[in-house]
């Protein structure tokens, strides 16, 4: 029912409605991807927007300079983000503790500096314009597929042995190693998977907007929003990121958008409150109260 409604929505809804739904799908894809690495393995990624930006630039460069069709460029965006994740994840995920978190904190600053520097390819600080294309509706379906794909992937992982191993790492990494789990490799796989969604979403968003520049595709605020959505919905669950993305996007769009700084301040407060008061998020509380299965 819901799927059918979402499928026919572009034919019936207003331009604004389609755009808002597109944004919701994007946030579901982003939040779900953050959940894959941070919710499942407990390794906090403070720079996940780096993959969004890497995907946006990969896709945009291929469209603008090599005339790729947008769908192929979007998939290439996922691959590009994955490559960045490999370079960063390989050294940082072999270590335990906060090294990874801080390395990710610096990553988006570094990528922003790099794309600003290599002007020939990226247009530098003045940005990169893409040829005009009226494809909001096809991009709507592509973004919906990305969001669905990330959610489906999360379900597949959580119900698999691979997912169990990841959660073992989260609960006790030493014990996981003692049981013979190759923790570095598992963390790296989870990290690579978590980079694909933002990469594709970034390339799609870039195509939809038609113009990108370094400051707009690497904002720290995007990482913050992803984290808040997952924490609020319930980290380490399948539907938590979806719930968080929809609830917070709606709240943001209709209530908080009028007060930009208060809205960010509120995000900070939500993070603090969730960590201290309900570490399992809304879905976690529902799971316990109504004895729902872990795979929800």
């Amino acid at each position, binding site marked *: 029912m819901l799927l059918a409604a979402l499928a026919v929505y572009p034919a019936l809804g207003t331009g604004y409605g389609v755009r808002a739904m597109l944004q919701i799908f994007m946030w579901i894809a982003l939040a779900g991807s953050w959940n894959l690495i941070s919710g499942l393995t*407990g390794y906090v990624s403070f720079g996940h927007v780096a993959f969004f930006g890497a995907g946006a630039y990969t896709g945009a460069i291929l469209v603008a300079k090599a005339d790729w069709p947008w769908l192929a460029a979007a998939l290439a965006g996922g691959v590009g983000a994955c490559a960045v994740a490999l370079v960063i994840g390989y050294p940082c995920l072999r270590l335990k503790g*906060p*090294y990874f978190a*801080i390395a990710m904190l610096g990553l988006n600053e570094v990528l922003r500096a790099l794309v600003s*520097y290599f002007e020939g390819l990226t247009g530098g600080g003045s940005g990169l314009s893409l040829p005009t294309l009226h494809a909001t509706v096809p991009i709507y379906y592509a973004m919906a597929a990305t969001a669905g794909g990330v959610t489906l992937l999360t379900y597949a992982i959580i119900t698999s042995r691979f997912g169990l191993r990841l959660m073992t790492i989260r609960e006790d990494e030493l014990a996981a190693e003692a049981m013979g789990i190759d923790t570095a490799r598992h963390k790296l796989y989870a990290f690579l998977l978590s980079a694909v969604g933002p990469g594709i979403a970034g390339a799609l968003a870039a195509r939809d907007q038609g113009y990108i520049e370094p400051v707009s595709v690497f904002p720290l605020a995007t990482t913050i929003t992803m984290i808040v959505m997952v924490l609020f919905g319930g980290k380490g669950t399948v539907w938590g990121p979806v719930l968080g993305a929809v609830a917070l996007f709606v709240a943001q769009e209709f209530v908080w958008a009028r007060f930009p700084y208060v809205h*960010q301040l509120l995000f900070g407060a939500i993070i*603090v409150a969730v960590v*201290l008061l309900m570490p399992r998020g809304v879905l976690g509380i529902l799971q316990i109260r109504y004895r729902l299965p872990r795979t929800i």
Partner: protein
Amino acid sequence: MNVAITPAMVGQVVISGILAGALYSMVALGLALIFGVMRVINIAHGPLLMLGAYTTFFLHSLFGLNPYLSVPVTMAVLFVVGVVLQRTLVFRVVDAPELSSLLLTFGISIGLVNLAQLAFTSDLRAVEYLTGSFPLGPFAVSKPRLVAFVFAAGVTGLAFLFLRGTRLGKAIRATSQSREVAMVCGVDVQRVHMLTFGFASALAAAGGALIAVIVAIQPEMGQIWTFKSFLVIVLGGAGNYPGALLGGMLLGLVEQGAALFLTTQLSEVVAYVLLVVVLLVRPTGLLGGRQT
């Protein structure tokens, strides 16, 4: 781009690097203390530095206080802020998994930055007090950076004397070596945690007060300092306090070198590559994992 590298240029890099490095060392010592004592990486360390810079700015613009005389005042103010943060929020996650403390201090950091944006707006502010540089042989030495170096070296020196000589300093070092043993020996660990967070915030504030004279002040100036401070303690070896001194100097030299030989735009990239390389080659830091 490819200019011939003269000895004078290298000397200039060394001088600027050491001047910048002392500031890094002092600020990073605060982060190292919190990590050593509580095993918490304080993401809000840089935003606390930002609050320090604003405190100095307002003391200067509203009361006409000399920015250098304001350093102790700013440190005292942020000491109180640090103690309050620790007593209200951070103490709850000291024994929780790392995920909790990282996320909590990240939330605090967002809160502080946006409170600053609300209260002080995003306008760039500057404390105009001391500018320019004087020649020293073939080199140019920036005046505000030299004064900042002297202050940073002084504050860091006092901090080390305090850690070595006083009962409280010894209690802090004991707690960072083993909390249980310190507790058994009669150290009030909760109090040590609270005061350490206060001292660490004061060190960040001193950094903020000193760079207030050098760079533009705005609410988002702090985050990069969290990253740089962490890089410094990784270079020096986490939990190794003298290591923070070495790491700070090294970061200062590398950044200045990169700014001169490549371009200032890429100096952060170079610092980042340095972090990744050190993590790959020597994850325990350059001085090893020794505790002091």
